[in-house]
């Protein structure tokens, strides 16, 4: 077989799609060098990391629990980045979403039917995140304020508002009684908890444990993940549903088309009659909506109370960016990306216990991955340039 132009294009497309993976491997290799310098066997460390995150039901459950906010935040980042709006403010947007969710659930959870409170909280968290993000969106659109800086500042403001509310109006009355005054809210009324997987399995009559059914190995762990009591909650369905919705929104609706058009070339979009300013605010608002929803889901599904803002947002605003980049700014690509990076965060904890490498290693690793992914884009750009130069090989690419 002679090498044809067609084959080269195919090969390049494959490499293009694999670039994020190559970037992650590159970051892991640099990380391995660091581990060696720290006198740790990198194979042992990475084995502890990945087996801790993926090899058994508890690790997997924790991984999926972290993947939920990562995916939701990541979806928001995808929308913003598609419009060429850089939203670094997901931390703050998540925090304000979590705050309003906590407030409403504590206030109404005991008197209203639970499905109503849960729905209201999810909607309110989403709207609050959207509102919080549309401030920097507006400032960018109308006053040309750099959105990277304004969103970072908005994060700090959200954190302080959180502390203010948790020390004052929203503090757990029990803390005041006990005189300890730790800034956290009361536990949400139990009916407002999002059902966990084990609850759902129970509704369908699955109550036996894997041991009862003599299931071992892979199937045992999978069965355990779905049926036995773990922290895994149904927020996962919300997140995956949202990923599909964002895909439909971006590629099957006019507004989604406008967002992508503004991102690709604002001048051309304006010429085509798209209102660029409004689109910028909209994409920022939508981006914040998903972060706010992530905050609501974290409170209802996992924490069941609001505490230190930065521990609730847990760096998802930044790791969500890594998820979006790794998923090639595609909502469906963000699903496996969120599971991979959820695993990395969980695995960091396991690695710390197994080989005593501090968990912050993962933060540095995330930074390296971002640097490698953005650097690797030079490859795609060069290819795109060649394609322009040789129009015969041009192909439809989304």
């Amino acid at each position, binding site marked *: 077989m002679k090498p044809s132009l067609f084959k080269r294009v195919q090969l390049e497309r494959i490499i293009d799609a694999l670039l994020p993976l190559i970037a992650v491997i590159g970051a892991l290799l640099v990380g391995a060098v660091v581990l060696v310098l720290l006198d740790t066997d990198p194979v042992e460390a990475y084995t502890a990391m990945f087996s801790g995150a993926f090899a058994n039901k508890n690790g997997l459950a924790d991984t999926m629990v972290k993947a939920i906010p990562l995916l939701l935040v990541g979806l928001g980042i995808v929308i913003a980045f598609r419009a060429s709006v850089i939203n670094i403010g997901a931390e703050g947007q998540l925090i304000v979403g979590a705050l309003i969710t906590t407030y409403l659930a504590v206030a109404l959870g005991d008197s209203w039917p639970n499905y109503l409170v849960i729905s209201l909280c999810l909607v309110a968290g989403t709207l609050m995140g959207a509102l919080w993000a549309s401030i920097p969106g507006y400032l960018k659109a109308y006053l040309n304020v750099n959105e990277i*800086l304004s969103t970072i500042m908005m994060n700090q403001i959200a954190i302080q508002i959180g502390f203010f509310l948790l020390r004052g109006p929203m503090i757990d009355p029990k803390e005041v009684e006990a005189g300890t005054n730790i800034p956290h809210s009361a536990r949400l009324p139990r009916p407002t908890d999002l059902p966990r997987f084990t609850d759902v399995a129970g509704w369908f009559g699955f109550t036996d444990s894997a041991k009862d059914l003599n299931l071992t190995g892979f199937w045992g762990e999978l069965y355990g993940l779905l049926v036995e009591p773990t922290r895994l909650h149904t927020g996962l369905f919300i997140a995956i549903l949202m990923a599909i919705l964002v895909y439909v929104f971006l590629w099957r609706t006019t507004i989604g088309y406008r967002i992508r058009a503004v991102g690709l070339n604002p001048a051309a979009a304006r010429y085509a009659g798209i209102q660029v300013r409004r689109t910028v605010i909209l994409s920022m608002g939508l981006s914040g909506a998903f972060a706010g929803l992530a905050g609501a889901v974290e409170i209802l599904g996992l924490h069941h109370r609001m505490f230190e803002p930065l521990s609730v947002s847990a760096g998802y605003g930044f790791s969500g960016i890594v998820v979006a980049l790794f998923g090639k700014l595609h909502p469906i690509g963000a699903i496996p990306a969120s599971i991979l990076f959820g695993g990395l965060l969980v695995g960091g904890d396991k690695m710390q216990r197994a080989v005593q490498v501090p968990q912050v290693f993962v933060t540095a690793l995330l930074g390296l991955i971002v640097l490698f992914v*953005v650097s690797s884009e030079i490859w795609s750009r060069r290819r795109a340039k060649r394609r322009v130069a040789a129009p015969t090989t041009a192909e439809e690419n989304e």
Partner: protein
Amino acid sequence: MNEGLSILAIIVGIAHSGIRLATPYLYAAIGETFAQRSGVLNLGVEGIMLMGAFGGFYVTFVTGNVILGLLAAALVGAIMGLIMAFISVTLNAEQGISGIGLYLLGLGASSLLFKTLLGTVEGVDGFSELKFCLASVGIASNFCLSDIPVFGEIFLSHSVIVYGAFALVPVAWWVLNKTTWGLSIRAVGQNPQAADSLGVSVARVRYMTVTFGGLLAGIAGASLSISLLNIFQEGMTNGQGFIAVALVYFGSWTPVGVLLGALLFSLVNALQLWVQVLGLNIPSDVAVMMPYLLTILALAFPFKRALQPAALTKPFERGEN
């Protein structure tokens, strides 16, 4: 309110802290001014500051020599700047996102090093505060200039690191406006194509400015860990690196503007600290929030936009346009 302090003492206290606290902002923001004037937005300043803070602290802690500590911080900062330059100039990567990557790398790496090399929060003898005592220049008197009421207390009782930060402002102004170097930097940031056609190497200029900016960001971090606070804690810069980037916008890309912004910010910070010291009836969370709120308001000021370097955040590739 605490009745033990006179109004004058409070004002002196605020002014003194204000000058002190401007130091990290000044180093970082002046360095960033150079990078941005040449067209590169380095958002990783926060991460570089953390690495500089740790590097400076650790070397001082191990050797007991604070000068070596400062050099280490400058070196670490320059290396981080070089990485940013490579990514943004040679690889033409998106500058905003690579900056966030550099921030995460610096945050993670400095914490990792802190946890593995030190483990607990330690203290060092950093740069001491000068007193300008007459005895030190051979005059037989135990009078020190820092004892001069108000003026001496506010201005003449800082460490050499603090004075260095303020001295940097006229130097930066002179380099940017009065030297060929400055002309090249401004040309590359304003119109890289034209600069390139006149034989100025865009890449070389940007490498120099971003590396130099990194060096100063490293010193900015060290100014916290071996001069102002004399400890290292994880994430101790607490967003000051990001504020420094914002200050460059606020100061409309000029050293003097940056100086005014840095002083405004540090005074608000000092005020906020004194509000807590005096136990005024303002929630501390609201007080802490003020500098950030102020940043957003400052960024929204419309009259400065025209001064932004035209090629800021735009990678340069020969043959484009």
